[in-house]
């Protein structure tokens, strides 16, 4: 434990240093010594001094809850294989206090965001996306899961090549969708010049909002080209995509201000928990007998209430 903590501190220190590295003045005993940058070669040559160079140093912790389904575990592994800037960790007990433990874990692993696959009742998969340590975090319900292992998806691509991200335009519609878009962008885009990233682009992620759900697809890009790195003329038109997988559909439930907690910023008004749906279905099925009995008693009551009049001609033939 101790050793790891040290590493994180070092990492943080480094991060700070890198952030301001090019324009940091030399320190003296009593203050700052501003030095002309004659001899120095600054990394961001043409840019202003005020804008520091943006560096994406995202690291994603991917983990899941205990007692996860094999299917959902495979989905998690697929996602991990798509994101080379991710780290895996042991399963976490899905308790009330899981937020705190997860935050701690993320810090220990020196990550800046987290994907937490939470499986409940071996049926329902919830996905947490969180920026750590100061939020926001989102909880999704995951539907329509297809893993990469399914054999009908024939595409394949380099492991660790940076994906092109395509978002449907309705992500710009509402503030919560905007926030989700930014979150997805930060988590799913592999940092440029990441050491495990490959320098070519051969797959594309499609995120689109349909029916208030976010649908995810991953396609391989196949472009016919004769020269090794240059596309043929009109190659863009001949370009085809083959699906690689995985597929899933995210239904946002809640957006929190903090990471794994904090004030609720958004709540999906249309969300119905799968438990509720199941119980409703059960109720519908169960009501059959009760309804029948009800109808019978009603009928009897009705008959008793308006009794038939005695027929005048009833015993006409008896005599």
């Amino acid at each position, binding site marked *: 434990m101790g050793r790891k903590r040290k590493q994180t501190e070092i990492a943080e220190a480094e991060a700070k240093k890198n952030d301001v590295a090019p324009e940091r003045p030399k320190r003296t005993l009593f203050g700052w010594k501003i030095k002309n940058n004659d001899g120095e070669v600054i990394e961001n040559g043409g840019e202003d001094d005020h804008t520091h160079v943006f560096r994406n140093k995202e690291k994603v912790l991917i983990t899941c809850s205990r007692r996860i389904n094999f299917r959902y575990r495979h989905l998690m592994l697929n996602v991990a294989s798509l994101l080379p800037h991710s780290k895996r960790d042991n399963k976490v007990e899905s308790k009330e206090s899981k937020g705190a433990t997860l935050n701690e874990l993320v810090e220990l692993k020196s990550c800046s965001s987290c994907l937490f696959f939470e499986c409940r009742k071996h049926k329902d998969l919830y996905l947490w996306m969180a920026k750590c340590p100061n939020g926001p975090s989102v909880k999704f319900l995951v539907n329509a899961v297809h893993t990469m292992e399914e054999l009908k998806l024939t595409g394949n691509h380099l492991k660790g090549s940076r994906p092109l991200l395509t978002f449907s335009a309705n992500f710009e519609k509402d503030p919560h969708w905007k926030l989700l878009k930014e979150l997805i962008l930060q988590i799913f885009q592999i940092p440029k010049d990441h050491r495990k990233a490959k320098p070519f682009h051969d797959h594309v992620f499609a995120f689109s909002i349909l029916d208030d759900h976010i649908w995810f697809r991953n396609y391989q890009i196949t*472009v016919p080209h004769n020269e090794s790195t240059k596309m043929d003329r009109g190659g863009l038109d001949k370009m085809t995509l083959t699906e690689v997988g995985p597929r899933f559909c995210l239904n946002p439930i809640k957006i929190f201000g903090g990471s794994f907690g904090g004030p609720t910023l958004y*709540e999906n008004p249309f969300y119905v928990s799968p438990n509720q749906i199941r119980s409703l279905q059960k109720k519908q099925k169960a009501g059959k007998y009760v309804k029948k009995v009800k109808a019978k008693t009603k009928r009897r009551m009705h008959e008793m209430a308006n009794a038939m009049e005695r027929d005048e001609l009833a015993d006409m033939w008896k005599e």
Partner: protein
Amino acid sequence: MVVLKKYPSVTNRDEMEDDEELGTISNDSESEQESESDEEQDEIKVAEPSKTAIYNKDGLVDKLGDFKWPDNVDWMHTLLIDIDQDQEVDVNDDLAREAAFYTQAVQGTREAFAKLESKGLPYLRPFDYYAEMVKTDAHMGKVKDKLLVEKKQREEQEERRKAREAKKISKQVQAEKTKERAKEKKESIESVKKWRKQREKSGYANDKDEMKLSFESGKVPGGKRKGPPGVSPGDRSGGKAKQFGGRGKRGMDKNKKDREFKNSKFGFGGRKGGKKQNTAETTNDIRGFNNKNNSRFGNKKRKVS
């Protein structure tokens, strides 16, 4: 493919209908009505957007500002493309939905590649760049196997379908042929009758010419074939077996059929095809004679090559 259903709306509709039915049956007991109205309330809560749901717009915007990457981030960092698709897509229509995703991805890729091209950065993977792939070779092998099996199955199915159709057609053809043959036979018989009458009328005058003419007129049964019409070549009974066979008892008929089938299968009757006759070749073949070792006691059946 998993079809995402809109459970709440569907269940709600069903429930509402049920309620209506119940309402028509009974509208006098108070307690019943109460319970129903309760149910209805429940349903409505599920179907409609809950009013208590939190939506803190300012908070969301603030938070977005907090953790957002700066606006002037180079596009190479994000590789992000927004695609505006105008038409609405039905969620439950799998094909349309997937097509929409595909077109979104394709358009995005086109734009992105154009951008990358304009920047002059390499983005296509060279042919000699081998690296680890997302799916392993073993997995891709499985995928390929599956595709092959599917293809084979499809082909087999096609073949079977074709065979079935061919069989149907061949039956028709067969029927037509038999009809034609019967017609031919009838005609030929008639023509013979006609010829006979004519001969009678003419009082058997210039007999030879008439005969010639009638046969040369080409109505000879069977055309090129030798033998009578409606008789298979190689049938020694001249088609009589068929004629008389039909009038037998049922059991006999069956036996007959069996016999016919067996004959057709194993071969019975028909010309021997001159198999057993000697020809010039066989008479000149003296391989059977053993002239090398002139022993009188040699095995006669043994052939010397």
